[in-house]
């Protein structure tokens, strides 16, 4: 058995008990033959101290619940290899969103922005007997867009979203906006572009690409934002 002790520094805050957040030192025995990902170790930490709070569900990078700031970089605990982590591992909640408790943040603002881009297919045409068909080429356009799991790693690593979370849609919202703009079955392209042609909603993006750097699914919101701008230019000239 390859066991070893891992050192942590964890952001703790319980608004019912604490006046202010603080960083707590913690250590835990890790069995490297069983534990691979950070979430495995968090489970061990929680077994030691059940007051430690974080969200988790699927433990395989699909639900997007366990997004947190790991050694200064946003990521999913369930996809982060423990052997690559520098110790003490510093765990903080996602930056820029209100903290509910420990590593749990209030995602209301993030989802408000997501809903603002109308994340559903708009098609007023007659309903087909079965599904709306796409050619393989048309379907190909959605690759790299539909995989977003809305974990908020990207938007909460974006300074433009930190400063204007109420007005700037943010990388996750814009990636999803382009997912519907790019969909040939959607008929609301013009309305969607109109809605985004705005100094705050879209043009707060200054292309610093923090979103691309952190996306645990390897998606590229900056590219999607570029495509939206390109479509606006093609529409305007």
């Amino acid at each position, binding site marked *: 058995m390859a066991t070893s002790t891992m050192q942590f520094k964890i952001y703790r805050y319980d608004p019912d008990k604490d006046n202010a957040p603080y960083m707590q030192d913690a250590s835990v025995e890790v069995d490297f033959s069983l534990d691979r990902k950070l979430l495995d170790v968090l489970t061990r930490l929680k077994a030691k101290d059940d007051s430690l709070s974080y969200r988790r569900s699927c433990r395989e990078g699909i639900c997007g619940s366990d997004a947190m700031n790991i050694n200064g970089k946003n990521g999913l605990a369930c996809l982060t290899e423990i052997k690559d982590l520098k110790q003490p591992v510093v765990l903080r909640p996602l930056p820029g969103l209100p903290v509910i408790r420990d590593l749990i943040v209030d995602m209301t603002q993030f989802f408000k922005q997501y809903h603002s881009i109308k994340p559903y297919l708009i098609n007023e045409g007659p309903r087909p007997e079965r599904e709306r068909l796409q050619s393989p080429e048309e379907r190909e356009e959605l690759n790299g867009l539909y995989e977003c799991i809305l974990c908020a790693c990207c938007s909460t690593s974006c300074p433009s979203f930190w400063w204007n979370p109420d007005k700037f849609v943010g990388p996750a919202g814009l990636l999803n906006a382009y997912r519907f703009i790019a969909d040939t079955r959607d008929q609301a392209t013009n309305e969607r572009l109109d809605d985004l042609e705005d100094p*705050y909603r879209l043009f707060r993006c*200054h292309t610093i690409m923090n979103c691309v750097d952190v996306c645990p699914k390897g998606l590229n919101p900056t590219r999607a934002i570029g495509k939206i*701008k390109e479509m606006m230019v093609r529409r305007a000239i």
Partner: protein
Amino acid sequence: MVNRILVGAHYGLKDWIIQRATAVVMALYTLLFLVVVGAVGPDSFEAWRAVFAHGFMKFATFLFLVSVFYHAWIGIRDIWMDYVKPDGLRLLLMIATATVLVGYAGWAFQILWRI
């Protein structure tokens, strides 16, 4: 009073394109400037003056400076939009920025055409 979030001004694309276009003008002028200065090799006030006395150089320099000021307008306005939350103060800073930049453009014209 409830402070409602207001977005939907429906502009931004034009500024975004102009910021890129002015960047191209600035890059081209930088090349032109280096070539001209490299070829002439001005070593005195009179020589420098002669470089800018040429009509084309005056025009190109003015175009460059106007590009700088427009580029700066969009950049500085973005900073105010990012960081300055009170609407009144933001408007005041935008007006002040625009005024200063228009003033600079007039001043640049005066300097170039008095040579």
